[in-house]
Structure formats: C-alpha cells, structure tokens
C-alpha cells in the first residue's frame, strides 16, 4: 500500500516541473530572493482574498506570456524585443483585468490599479526576457508557472499574518474568539496600515534566511 503511494510521489519528485516549482518557492523565490515585484506584493496583502486573487492573476499572466513569447521567440527581432514583450504582457493583463471586472467585481474594485500594474511588475518582464526568449515553449510555461507560484506563496503568507493579527479575521470571517477580546487581547492595528506591510515582509525574509542557514 505504501509503495503504491510512494511510487508516483517519487516519480513526481524527479520530474522537471516539480523541481522548478520547488526551486522558485524556496531557493530562488522571486520576491524574497531576487527582490522582484515587491510593489504589488505589499499593496494587496491586507486581506487574504485579494492576495490569492492577485497571486492567481499574476501566475496566469507570467505563465501565458512566457508561453507566447517563447512561441514567437524566433520571429522577434533583437532590437525591438522589449516592446514586443510589453505588448504581449499588456494584452494578457487587459484580459485578466476585464475578466475580474466581469466575474469578481468586488475584488476587482479592491485591487483597483494593482491588476493593471502587473504590466510593470518586474517578475513578468524579467522572466520573458531572461528565460522565454531562449527556451522552448513548454519549459518557459513551467518556468512562468513556478515563478508565479513562488510569488503567490509570499503574498499569501504575508496576507495571512496581516489579516489574522491585524483584524482578527481570515477571508473576512472572524476567527479570533470573542472571549479573547474580553480577556484583553487586541488587534494590532498597525499591521493593517502601510508600515505594517513593510515590517511584516522584512521579518518574513529574516525568518526565511534563518531557516535556510540552518539547512
């Protein structure tokens, strides 16, 4: 029984995509290791829900822009490659933005300009320029997916702590019991404000470095 579960698991662990995703989550995380895409990762982390939507939107945009640029890479002239990449990314971001407006209007209002700002998010242009321009489509797609997931993981981690400690809620539902407030527990209001995001991500990176050093 054990072997039955272990076999697909070890096959999965050996696969190329799995290794790429683990690398982006941990050793080469785009946010905490390569310091890319900080802007949006801070602004949308007041609530868990917006953070998850933003993470998914960015993952889809990076993965599909990597795929498209990689498919076109032989036809793109060297000198205008940045403009071509920007056009591809901008088109995909517009699609994501319109999609959110149509199907998740409330979340789209909360994310306001930050979905549009995926265009100038360094992760997206960084991956298309550094990876998709010289690699085959499938690998580029996996690379985009991996980096998107790595970015989303930091986003969700920070949002989880900020929403839990800052307003005592998760996904908008109160999780800190009323009895705690009676006993003198108070929400940390600073975490909901802008400085809380900076400090939280600083501490997050510190923790990650400590854990990596130990390993």
């Amino acid at each position: 029984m054990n072997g039955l579960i272990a076999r697909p698991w070890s096959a999965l662990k050996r696969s190329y995509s799995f290794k790429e995703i683990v690398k982006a989550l941990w050793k080469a995380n785009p946010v905490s290791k390569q310091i890319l895409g900080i802007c949006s990762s801070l602004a949308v982390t007041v609530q868990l829900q917006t953070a998850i939507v933003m993470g998914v939107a960015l993952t889809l945009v990076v993965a599909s822009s990597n795929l498209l640029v990689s498919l076109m890479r032989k036809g793109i002239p060297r000198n205008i490659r940045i403009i071509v990449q920007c056009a591809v990314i901008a088109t995909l971001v517009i699609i994501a933005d319109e999609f959110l407006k149509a199907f998740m209007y409330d979340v789209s209002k909360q994310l306001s300009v930050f979905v549009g700002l995926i265009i100038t998010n360094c992760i997206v242009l960084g991956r298309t320029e550094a990876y998709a321009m010289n690699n085959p489509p499938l690998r580029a797609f996996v690379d985009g997916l991996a980096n998107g997931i790595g970015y989303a993981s930091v986003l969700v981690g920070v949002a989880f702590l900020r929403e839990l400690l800052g307003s005592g809620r998760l996904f908008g539902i109160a999780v800190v019991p009323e009895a705690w407030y009676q006993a003198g527990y108070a929400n940390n209001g600073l975490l909901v404000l802008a400085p809380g995001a900076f400090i939280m991500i600083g501490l997050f990176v510190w923790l990650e470095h400590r854990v990596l050093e130990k390993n």
Partner: protein
Amino acid sequence: MENLISIGVNSIFVGNILLSYFLGMCSFLAVSRHLATAAGLGVAVIFVMALTTPANWLIYHFLLAPGALAWAGLPNSNLSFLKLILFIAQIAAIVQILEMIIDRYSPALYTALGVYLPLITVNCAILGVSLFMVERNYSLAETAVYGAGSGAGWCLAIIAMAAIQKKLRYADVPKGLQGFGLSMIVTGLIAMGFMLFAGISV
C-alpha cells in the same frame, strides 16, 4: 485653489506614492545606496511624472473615456480598456523624447540624469500615478499638481532612505536581516513617520 494645495500636500506626505501605495519599490531598493545617485533618480522621477501624468490625462479624456470620441462623431465609444497599453506606450515615448532633447540641449543635465531615464519607463510609480488619476476623476489642473506632487514625494522618500542607509553602514545588523530585510523594516519606519502628517489639514 485650496483643493489644489490639499491634493499637492496629500500626494507628497500622507498619500505618498511609495510609502503608502508601495509603488516604485524596485528602483527604490536598487538605487538607494548612495545619496547622490538617489537624488539624481528622484529629480528625474519628478520631471517625468510631472510631464507624463497630464499627457496621459489628455489621451484618456480625448480618446479613451466613455463618450470621449464624440468630437469624431462616435458618441457611444468606450475605449477605456485600452488605457493600460496606451499609457505605457506614451510614457515610454515621452521618456525617449526627453532623453534626446536633454542630450541635445543640456549635456551637463544629460550626464546627471541620462542613466536613470530608461530605468524610469519601467518604474511602476509612473504608470500607477496615471491610473490613480483616472480612478479619482481628477481635472487637468488637479492632475498636473498630483503628478508633480507624487514625484516630489517619491524623491523625498528615496533621499531619506539613502541618507539612512549611509548611517547604517557601520551598524551591527543580525546576519539574516542584512540587505533586503533591513531595507524593508527601515522603509516601514519611514512610512510610520510619514503617517503622522495625516493629522495636518490645509
């Protein structure tokens, strides 16, 4: 007039584009090691923001907004979904033209600012200010003040950061916190300082 002053003060201090909207972090973290370069980039950002934001206002209100094409006989048009792509193209074009003009007429200014200009095209604060301007329905005068004010706010923040980094050079920082982690915490403290301006009303 009072309205304009309050938008200006707000965009520099309380609603600082970097410290309360987190825009332009990448170049903020990369270029804040030296005071002189930080100041150079800051001035270049003021310059570009003050030019591109009103220019984007014109594009939006005469081409893209719902009903904006009435002058061309198309009263039902709504091209506002194209704003992302047109704004970024406009910013890239203005930065390019600016670079050529400065190079032609003021070589001294070019050596001081020239290196930073291409960096600015991908600075998300520039695009962000243009998008906020649309979202908040500013008029042309308000937009001009808001653009310049946001640039000044960004410049102020990066200069403060560079000055603090200089002082921190000899500080004994825990190993895991060095670099990125510390920069974020210092930025958080600056942001906290700037929040105190919130009580001031003009």
